[in-house]
Each structure stands twice: as structure tokens, then as C-alpha cells.
């Protein structure tokens, strides 16, 4: 096992599974957004139907 955590490089996708079970997708593209919608259709933070909730089971982030 490497000592240093992996640092994202251009072109990488990152998905984190937190201890709480929450799934965080970082900068998902359209394909990953569709996958998020399939995995958690009721709890996806940013679904195509635009149901933005403040406390959700999964999260997609474009925090810049």
C-alpha cells in the first residue's frame, strides 16, 4: 500500500464512499450523472428533475 494518498490527475474520475455510506461523485460528467441517478434515484443530489435537497444520501460536487 502506498504511503501517500492518490492525487487526481487530468482525466481521472473520483468517487468517494464515506463512512456514513454517503457516495460523493466529484465533477461527474453526463455519464456519471446518469449512473448516480440509477444508483440512487430518490437521493441523488442533482438529478435531471432538479430536485435539489439540502441533506441527501449521495452528492455530486462541482465545488470550485
Amino acid at each position, binding site marked *: 500500500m502506498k504511503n501517500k494518498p492518490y492525487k487526481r490527475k487530468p482525466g481521472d474520475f473520483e468517487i468517494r464512499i464515506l463512512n456514513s455510506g454517503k457516495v460523493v461523485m466529484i*465533477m461527474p460528467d453526463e455519464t456519471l450523472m446518469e449512473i448516480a441517478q440509477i444508483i440512487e434515484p430518490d437521493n441523488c443530489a442533482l438529478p435531471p428533475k432538479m430536485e435539489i435537497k439540502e441533506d441527501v444520501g449521495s452528492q455530486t460536487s462541482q465545488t*470550485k
Partner: protein
Amino acid sequence: MNDMDYQAHSQAFERIKTAREALTDCNFCPRQCGIDRTAGEKGYCGLDDTVRCFLEMLYYGEESELVPSHQIHFTGCNLRCEFCVVAEWNEEPLVAEEMDFDDMAKRIAHRHSKGAKTLNFLGGEPAVNLHGVLELISRVDSEIRVVWNSNMYYNDIVDKLMAGLVDVYLADFKCGNNNCAEFLLGANNYIEVVKRNILKAAKHADVIIRHVVIPGHSECCLKPIFEWLTTEIPEVKLSLRGNYVPPIPVTSAPAEYLEPDDMQSAVDLAKNMGLKLVK
């Protein structure tokens, strides 16, 4: 689009020329690198005069009045936020493919025809790609609503060349004081620059202030931002975001995720101060 906007759009070609000339002594942002990007020199943002896009997509996660939004993500940024989720593209901005403006204009038209409500320029940071943004605007239908999705850390030339071409300034207001801005974003004089540009933007078009709630930065950042908004532009729309993602590895930024209670406290405070929250 009003008369001023039509006039601005018709001036796009002139503005491209001005922006390209400015690349020879680049001072688009307060870094004031003064380098000649047309000669291949690279300043703080790491960009030469080429324009590169690492992602274009239809996105539903922007503020509800903007979606579905066609995002054009440019590489390169003039801030170094450790928690940035696209930091890798800002550290190596020339890795992405160079943009074909005509091809991208076709994609924009296609997305618009399929229902995209807005054309959203972001990055990275659009300001350091000013000439690229203008190239695209000159090629697309002037009826398309343009969103300038920016950190607002730029010099006056950017404000002048974009005035009248933007329908909505989606202004990221990250830190409420210069110490945090220097520590978290690597930016000097951040507060003065961003406040100035937000006030200018508010004279040109609609503004949505976006603030990502940063864990542990309520007193030093969130509250001062709210107080300033209440005093200076109380009618502005405020979008609070609770999707802070701690970087890995972490050095300067908070290492924890935002707690739901902290997000709720931020929302409550904004409401109590009479700010106009949007989702």
C-alpha cells in the same frame, strides 16, 4: 436582449481583437503577470494564448433558473483553492485539447436546440480565457442566455470586454476576509477585487452570488459576506452551497465535510438577515 446588449454583441469582433492584443502583456487578473502569452509564455494561470476545454456538458445542478445549463469548462485558473474539484486541470491546463471554436459553436447551437436554457462559461476560470469566451460569443446566437460563472478575481479589462454580453453573473464569493483568501485561495487583495467586480456586474446584468459554505469558516467568511451583501446589494440573489469536498491530500483547507446542521445554520442566518435565497 436590450439595445445595449445588441450593441455589445455586434462589437464582439472588436472586443476579441482587444483581448488578443492584451494577451501580449497579460494583465487579465490581479496577478498582473505581464507576460506575452502569444509568444508561448505562461503566467500564474499556466496558460499561453491557446484556449482549452476539458469538459462540456448539460448540467442540472446549477441554480434552478439556469438549468438545464450548457457548461463549457475552460482549463486554467488564477486561484489555487486546495478544495477545488478540478484542481488537476488548473495545475496542468495545457493537457486538455485545444478548443475548436467553430466546432464548439455548433455544439452550443445543438444543446440550445435541445433545450439548454443557458450557456455557462466556467472553468477553471473564464476570465483568464477571456479571448476564448469572446470567440465563442461571436459565433453563437445572440438570443442565447450567457452565464459568467466566475471567481470574480479579475481586472477591469475583463469587466469592460464582457459588459453587455452576460445575462447572469454567477459570482462565486468564497472568502469573507483577506487572510482566509490568502490561506485558502492563494489570493492577495481578494476582498477588494471581488467586491468591486460584483458591484460592477450588478450594474450590467442579473447577479447570483454563490457561496460554498466552508466548514469552520462561518464567523470569518460566511457572516462578513452576508453583512456586506445586506449593506451593499440587499436585493441580490444568494445561492448557498453545502457541497464542500475536502481535498485529498489536505494541507490548508478544512479536512471535514460540512455537517447538515452547519448548512441549516447558514440558511437560517441568511433568512434572518433578509437575504434572498435561491436554489
